[in-house]
């Protein structure tokens, strides 16, 4: 980017308008000549990148230097760049700094200010989202399913700008059963005197408004029901919203079961998606769902599979992998904290997400995850179920290496953190040699 800008300015200086090809040639010529200040800036900042300074800082430095390029000499640039590098490396976390403890406190303290039980309506009135402390606990505990599973479905170029087209996609996703489009039903069981078995007539009275809303026709409903066993379907010619069904059952309980099966027959949609809401975000329409099924929804036509996301961390891990789960953990925690107006540095949250995903699968911070799988017996015993851990360890003849913090506090040693991590070793043989000299 900056390079392009630089070469653009150069051509301006030369007061000639050149095509790209000629410009390349000119660039080569320029290299032979004395480098301009722009070249120096580009070169020096690139060097900064190679020294291990993050891209973002390098870009910022380059941009700022370019802004004041007329006031700089090449040696200024060099001095500034060196200072930036020095300052950056001075500010890195020191080895042996207890970053975990710092992260825990940095997230823990603001969390005490969170409203205990918050149910917030994120943008839409109809959709209830768990936020605040309950959601935070849910994330770090890595619960199998979130208490309010939600998907944010983005649409592809063809569908995102038009409400009608968005609704078409929404209809394909929302799980619709026969029951959802039925206004009323009547059932008349009767006994067949020849066989002694019970049959029944079920009359479904479909709701015109719901049919319209879900985009289903009566024939589709009849067809879906017709696929079931022990059922005969007939559409009523006198009423466009009536379906007559004959059920052949064994007894009344059997008929009841068949009736339930008819009402639960899937008409369309993705399993698990209870409701879909169309929302306008900026200049595009986005679907919010109650219930998640990332795997299936990504396959639906009209959905943009590169941006569609679920708030179920396990589901994301399963469908998109551990790195996506890590990114989602960070995003969800930051969202919760931000919504509560708490300013926590994202680096602490990143550390939490790194630890939770370290083994290649999402692990909770707690008994069944990170804390419960520590190598040290004493550290585990200090956390929970002290006696059990000690008994188990004794039975197995385990050894505690005393490498961690907790176990060293317990035995009263210096903890291996900060300056405490430094140990002094002596090689007596080399001392002897020196004495000989």
């Amino acid at each position, binding site marked *: 980017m900056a390079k392009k800008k630089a070469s653009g300015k150069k051509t301006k200086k030369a007061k000639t308008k050149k095509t790209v090809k000629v410009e390349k040639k000119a660039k080569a010529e320029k290299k032979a000549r004395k480098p301009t200040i722009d070249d120096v800036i580009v070169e020096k900042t690139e060097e900064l990148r190679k020294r291990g300074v993050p891209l973002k800082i390098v870009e910022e430095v380059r941009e700022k230097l370019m802004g004041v390029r007329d006031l700089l000499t090449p040696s200024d640039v060099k001095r500034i760049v060196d200072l930036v590098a020095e300052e950056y490396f001075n500010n890195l976390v020191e080895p042996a700094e207890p970053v975990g403890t710092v992260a825990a406190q940095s997230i823990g303290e603001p969390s005490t200010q969170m409203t205990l039980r918050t149910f917030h309506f994120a943008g839409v009135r109809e959709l209830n989202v768990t936020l605040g402390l309950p959601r935070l606990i849910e994330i770090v505990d890595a619960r199998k399913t979130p208490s309010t599973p939600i998907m944010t479905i983005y649409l592809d170029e063809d569908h995102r700008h038009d409400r009608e087209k968005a609704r078409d996609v929404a209809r394909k996703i929302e799980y619709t059963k026969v029951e959802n489009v039925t206004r009323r039903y009547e059932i008349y069981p009767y006994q067949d005197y020849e066989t002694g078995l019970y049959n029944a007539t079920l009359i479904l009275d479909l709701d015109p408004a719901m049919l319209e809303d879900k985009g289903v026709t009566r024939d589709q409903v009849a067809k879906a029901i017709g696929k079931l066993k022990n059922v005969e379907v007939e559409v009523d010619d006198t009423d466009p919203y009536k379906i007559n069904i004959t059920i052949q059952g064994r007894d009344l309980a059997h008929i009841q079961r068949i009736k339930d099966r008819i009402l639960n027959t899937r008409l369309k949609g993705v399993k698990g998606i209870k409701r879909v809401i169309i929302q306008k975000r900026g200049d595009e329409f986005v679907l919010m769902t109650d219930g998640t099924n990332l795997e299936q929804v990504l*396959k639906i036509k009209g959905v943009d599979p590169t941006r569609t996301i679920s708030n179920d961390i396990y589901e994301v891990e399963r469908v*998109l992998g*551990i790195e996506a789960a890590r*990114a989602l953990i960070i995003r969800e925690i930051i969202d919760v904290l931000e919504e509560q107006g708490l300013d926590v540095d994202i680096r602490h949250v990143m550390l939490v997400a790194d630890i939770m995903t370290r083994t290649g699968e999402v692990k909770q911070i707690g008994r069944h995850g990170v804390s419960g799988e520590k190598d040290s017996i004493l550290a585990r015993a200090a956390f929970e179920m002290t006696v059990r851990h000690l008994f188990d360890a004794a039975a197995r003849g385990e050894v505690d290496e005393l490498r961690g913090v907790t176990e060293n506090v317990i035995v009263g040693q210096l903890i291996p953190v900060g300056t405490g991590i430094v140990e002094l070793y002596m090689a007596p043989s080399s001392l002897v040699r020196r004495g000989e000299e």
Partner: protein
Amino acid sequence: MVSRKFNVLNHELVPKHEVLSPEEAVRVLKELGTMPEKLPWIKASDPAARAAGAKPGDIIRIIRKSPTAGETVAYRYVVVG
């Protein structure tokens, strides 16, 4: 329902995954001064690892977008699972 093959690596939440060549893996481990098992792991069955074509024993370079550093490089060791 129209079924389409979707590459998970194209998803916004999934950072770039690259499988390292053996030579490169050795170089990276030396640079970091560590052993493969001490890196964070990724399962061979992980959708992103599969999409990148990784096998157990490989090391994957992950280039993440980061709000603090712009771009960060991380490594994961592919484990059986």
